[in-house]
């Protein structure tokens, strides 16, 4: 990339600030780009506009109070955050979750992943000009959010998991409704596929844009769809299998070059695989409890609270002191919508974590934005930034 450095003209690169409040910034992120004509010669990302002090809040809350905060991390797939956090604390307590709860978590987690990808792909498509795809995908997301609402009572701020299980069981008639909604969502995905994948305008905007090589992606610690688009089949559901994923059959789509188009295709295929997983999990859903009762980790049944002195004392202790896991440190990662969503929790044996760190998957992607955009046109920032699926709540915590 050469700058216009003729001394006679006295030309210099133009500095352009994009964001923080810009429609293509998917939240509030600021880019400071230097342009030579329309080509980006240097670029710097400035983040932190959505920093809410998650870790400080977590250190001053008890373990149950953190669950609602995790909804606000990746707010397009809140259930995966709930699940990841609860799994971490369960690991700390050594609690085993009932199988029905595990299958329900897989179903809800995969629904969230589909929602996440629908939002990301829809928004990317809209930003490069395919407005109708956005509306269709959001329509499909709405079908799924109605399911989520049916189960958790909320569309976005789900707070559905508890330490040792889930807040409630899947409601009656949920599986029939699920079946119907999945068919509808599959249709919408196929429609989007037909509309975009062989569309020249779309391909011109996406193909060869924002390439990152396999080696650099690993160096930047990419995970999730971004790394898989570079051709590395790294998926935590297979790599470090958790929950009941080993019993379910699914494929890991990988890309070849690692450009925006590959990321689009990988996400599109992942949604189909997720739907496949949900169908299997729904078939295998066993009867049983939806949560296990651990007297130091969760509230007892109301019948126990009012009917026995032990129940009442347990209830009082949990409400006043919070659950008190044994001292120790634990790292648990789950495959979030964007990649490895890790929780590192240090307990000192008291009711509040000494440290509660979230490893945000899209942090690394935004760090690599400069490398992916330099040499491209200014307008290419939009599909590149769309394809990394930056989620402010998760990035800046």
């Amino acid at each position, binding site marked *: 990339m050469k700058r216009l450095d003729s001394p006679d003209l006295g030309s210099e690169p133009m500095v352009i600030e994009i964001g923080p409040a810009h429609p293509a910034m998917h939240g509030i992120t600021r880019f400071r780009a230097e342009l030579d004509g329309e080509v980006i010669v240097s670029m710097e990302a400035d983040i932190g506009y959505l920093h809410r002090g998650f870790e400080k809040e977590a250190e001053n809350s008890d373990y149950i109070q953190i669950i609602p905060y995790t909804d606000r991390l990746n707010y397009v797939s809140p259930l995966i955050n709930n699940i990841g956090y609860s799994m971490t604390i369960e690991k700390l307590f050594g609690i085993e979750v009932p199988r029905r709860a595990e299958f329900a978590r897989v179903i809800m987690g995969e629904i969230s992943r589909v929602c996440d990808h629908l939002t990301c792909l829809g928004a990317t498509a809209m930003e490069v000009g395919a407005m109708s795809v956005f509306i269709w995908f959001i329509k499909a997301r709405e079908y799924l959010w109605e399911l989520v609402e049916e189960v958790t009572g909320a569309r976005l701020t789900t707070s559905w998991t508890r330490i040792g299980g889930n807040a409630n069981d899947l409601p009656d008639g949920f599986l029939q409704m699920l079946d119907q909604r999945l068919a509808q969502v599959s249709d919408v995905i196929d429609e989007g596929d037909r509309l975009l994948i062989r569309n020249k305008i779309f391909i011109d905007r996406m193909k060869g844009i924002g390439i990152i090589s396999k080696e650099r992606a690993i160096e930047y610690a990419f995970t999730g769809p971004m790394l898989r688009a570079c051709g590395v089949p790294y998926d935590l559901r297979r790599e470090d299998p958790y929950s009941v994923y080993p019993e379910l059959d699914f494929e890991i789509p990988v890309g070849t070059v690692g450009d925006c188009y590959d990321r689009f295709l990988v996400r599109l295929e992942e949604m189909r695989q997720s739907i496949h997983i949900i169908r299997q999990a729904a078939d295998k859903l066993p009867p049983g409890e939806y949560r296990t009762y651990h007297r130091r980790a969760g509230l007892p049944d109301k019948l126990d609270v009012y009917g026995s002195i032990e129940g009442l004392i347990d209830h009082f202790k949990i409400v006043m002191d919070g659950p008190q896991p044994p001292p120790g440190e634990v790292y648990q990662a789950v495959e979030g919508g964007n990649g*490895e969503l890790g929780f590192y929790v240090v307990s000192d044996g008291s009711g509040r974590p000494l440290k509660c760190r979230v490893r945000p998957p899209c942090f690394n992607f935004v760090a690599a934005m400069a490398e992916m955009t330099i040499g491209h046109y200014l307008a290419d920032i939009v599909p590149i930034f769309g394809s990394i699926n930056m989620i402010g709540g998760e990035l800046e915590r």
Partner: protein
Amino acid sequence: MAEDPRQPVEEEQVSEQAPTSPPVLTALLLENFSDSVVSHHTNFGDETVVIKREGLLDLFRFLKDDPRCRFDLMIDLTAADYLPREPRFEVVVHLKSIVLHHRLRVKIPLATDEAELDTISGLWVAADWYERECWDMYGIVFKGHPNLRRLLLYDEFEGHPLRKDYDYYLQQPLVPMRKIRERHDYEHKVITPEGPKPLPS
């Protein structure tokens, strides 16, 4: 009924300290870097080594390049503040190998008045932003970092909010709007413990 909630904990701790031989990676590090490794443990199945900050670069290079380790993915870098204890800070690095499918946690304890260590951003680019965040939140200096500026907070922010002695209720004064020129220039500074200084060009 009257059992102490901590009781099962002590049992677990005893059983964890008991293993006869350390896990593979720990044994490898003990063999090659016996001076650097302070202690090691396995907590909930996560292999952990605690190392000295002196010579940490050699150790991390070994972890990255040795064919028995091959830690190509630097998953996470963060710190923890154990305030009354000394050494007070612990920098925690999580590593993962895509090729060999194993994980390792490396911890580097740091004393209050010596909260600095060598940067590992030369080994993994991913460490660049993680170290900036760590400096931002804990005030731990990464020596040799190319661009150690605040990441999530703004330059005028005073203190490091995730330190345990940073008051939870403290409010920072609002910063007046910057002039356009300053807005372009203010980023070219390094924040040092003494205050912002211009970047060495």
